[in-house]
């Protein structure tokens, strides 16, 4: 326990928060040092999360904030899922903040770094918390910082996107709050485990209505199909480093929240069929919309919708394999999409335009970036030997292992989506390498601070893709944790 008190999961939230509060002070001392604060914070977080991760695989750590016993105080539930995502957030945050050191030059830099730090802190809070109102609060931290970050550049498109995002997002949070209020009114508690213990039948109208409000609210951030209209705007207009985090982390965290609510609090069963169909719909609409895009970041954003659909589908299978596959797909999407956005960031920066046609010949101009981009697309499409393949493999396996006809049809549709995805991504690759006249030979490679994160992400993608066993050891306990409601209740309430 002594060792564990040093490695308390609450540090993952407290330290970045403290650092965020510290930034304005440090900003008075030196402008340069501020840039490195998020790097330091996420490095710390990454190390702590990775150190804690092995401990939670068997038994989750319950952190009682303020020392109050769970139903009465807020608790953090650092299980395998939470810690997996927390590590992912920390690692991605670390890499993206390195990238941002040189990338963010315009606007109020200091404020960017605070917002960025808080965005990911909010995300960490969401994945770790065990209390629905606390979830709401961290969710708001996540949302508000992303509203601000989307508008950070102050461009027309950024503002427009941010406003639309804000309107939809705040409706979402209001719905979430209504749902929480309804639940509190009925069960008199806000603790997830306590709620889960008291809710026996989710189909009961009163419970169902509150559940619907909650998942609608969370689903907006998770970008499930009819609720995702903000996503392409926001992800394409934000600075690329932010897009990377929004696509890589924010929507995944939203989805995590939806899944946590559905699995742990309500323990839904038949409802997942609806979600499954929704997931496939999300895949198809996302990929089909992406197909005709001319703006590269918008295309990537729509592709994120498609990927989210796939993850939703995987979770909805609600078997051990399916949930593990969904988590794996989350990981591979985070790595892949973050990489793509980071690469796209400098590609856009160098060409000065987001049009895909302007990327012609960039493969010569910035060979390493282009290579990283290519590997990212391969991973997202699901080509071996990259992570995307391993995760897709797991999901298809889960879908087929179930043996239901509906699932088989749906996975077929998902694969159709994958083919469309392949088509447009390969078109971009052609544009990068093979289109346009052989005009400029002068290299304008991205700076080292940008290349390092890209290359690290690439190495992650390749290593995990070739040796998925590394992550499978975490995925399996994580999946069983999500599926096992009784154990969750037991470990929180004792």
């Amino acid at each position, binding site marked *: 326990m002594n060792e564990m008190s040093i490695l308390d999961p609450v540090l993952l939230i407290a330290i970045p*928060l403290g650092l965020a509060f510290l930034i304005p002070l440090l900003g008075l001392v030196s402008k340069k040092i501020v840039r490195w604060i998020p790097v330091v914070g996420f490095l710390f977080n990454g190390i702590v999360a990775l150190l804690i991760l092995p401990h939670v695989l068997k038994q989750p750590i319950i952190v009682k904030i303020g020392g109050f016993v769970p139903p009465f105080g807020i608790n953090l539930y650092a299980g395998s899922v939470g810690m997996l995502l927390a590590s992912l957030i920390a690692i991605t945050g670390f890499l993206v903040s390195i990238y941002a050191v040189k990338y963010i030059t315009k606007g109020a830099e200091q404020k960017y770094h605070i917002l960025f730090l808080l965005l990911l802190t909010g995300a960490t809070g969401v994945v770790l918390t065990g209390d629905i109102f606390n979830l709401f609060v961290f969710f*708001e931290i996540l949302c508000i910082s992303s509203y601000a970050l989307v508008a950070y550049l102050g461009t027309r498109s950024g503002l427009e996107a941010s406003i639309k995002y804000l309107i939809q997002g705040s409706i979402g949070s209001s719905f979430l709050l209504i749902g929480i209020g309804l639940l509190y009114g*009925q069960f008199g508690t806000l603790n997830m485990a306590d709620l889960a213990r008291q809710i026996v039948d989710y189909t009961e109208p009163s419970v169902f*209505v509150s559940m619907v409000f909650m998942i609608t609210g969370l689903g907006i951030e998770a970008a499930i199909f009819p609720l995702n209209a903000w996503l392409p705007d926001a992800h394409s207009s934000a600075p690329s480093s932010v897009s990377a985090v929004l696509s890589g982390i924010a929507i995944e965290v939203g989805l995590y929240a939806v899944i946590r609510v559905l699995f742990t609090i309500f323990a839904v069963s038949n409802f997942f069929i609806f979600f499954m169909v929704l997931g496939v719909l999300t895949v198809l609409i996302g990929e089909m919309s992406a197909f005709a895009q001319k703006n590269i970041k918008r295309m990537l954003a729509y592709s994120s919708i498609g990927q989210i659909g796939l993850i939703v589908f995987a979770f909805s299978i609600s078997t051990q394999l399916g949930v593990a596959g969904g988590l794996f797909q989350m990981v591979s999407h985070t790595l892949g999409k973050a990489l793509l956005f980071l690469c796209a960031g400098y590609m856009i920066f160098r060409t000065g335009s987001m049009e895909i046609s302007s990327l012609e010949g960039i493969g010569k101009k910035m060979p390493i970036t282009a290579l990283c981009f290519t590997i990212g697309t391969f991973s997202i499409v699901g080509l071996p030997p990259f992570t995307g393949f391993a995760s897709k493999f797991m999901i298809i396996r889960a879908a087929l292992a179930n043996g239901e006809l509906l699932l088989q049809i749906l996975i077929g549709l998902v694969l159709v989506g994958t083919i469309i995805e392949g088509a447009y991504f390969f078109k971009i690759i052609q544009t990068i390498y093979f289109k346009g006249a052989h005009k400029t030979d002068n290299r304008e490679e991205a700076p080292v601070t940008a290349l390092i994160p890209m290359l690290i992400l690439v190495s992650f993608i390749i290593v995990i893709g070739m040796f998925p066993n590394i992550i499978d050891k975490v995925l399996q306990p994580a999946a069983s944790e999500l599926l096992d409601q009784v154990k969750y209740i037991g470990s929180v309430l004792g």
Partner: protein
Amino acid sequence: MRKCIGIILLIIIAWGILTSLQTMPFGVSRAKVANHYINNGKDETGAANIVTSVVINYRAFDTLGEVTVLFLSAIGLGAVLATIKTREKRDTEKASLILSTGCRFLFPPIILFGAYIFIHGHLTPGGGFQGGAIIASAFLLMYLGCHGEKRLNDRCSTFSESLGGLAFVIIGLIGLAVGTHYFLNNFMPLGKFNTLLSAGVIPIIYIAIGFKVGAELSKIIDLLMEES
């Protein structure tokens, strides 16, 4: 058309909510958790105001988040408005002497009152947020009454908001380090019930929050006033 669809959809939702509300009649229930707070709250936290004990102790983590949200909004506002450099001078009439003198006269009492509110957060229906809001209202008064003359000291407000936030976090971390080793643990002696120096860390946190909220709200006002 749009309105019709909207109304129909809202009616459906209203029907759903109605169904849900039937299980939670108005004005009767008090849940287990709430009972625990009311019955044991004053012993466990030492605060007379149970809401405060909930806000600062039982659900202190929420409050930390809440403070962060406010911080975020101030920062976000700054970030969004930062890129406007053109700050055109508007020819506004200078406030009359009576108005500006009155404002200056009222300013210290309002600040003092705000401070009173947040210091007595654990005893009375007040607290850091409320106190902070009152402090901000003093600044608002100054902006309205003495337009263009007095401005918020940027450095000072930055200091107070940062230090306020840091204080909250550090108190939490101290709780992790000492006593029962829980984050945001109320590690200080609870003192005599219903006196000013009681309820352990609650007043300290509330003071930090008060400074922070006051600074942040003032900053928001400052930014919005400046741009509009």
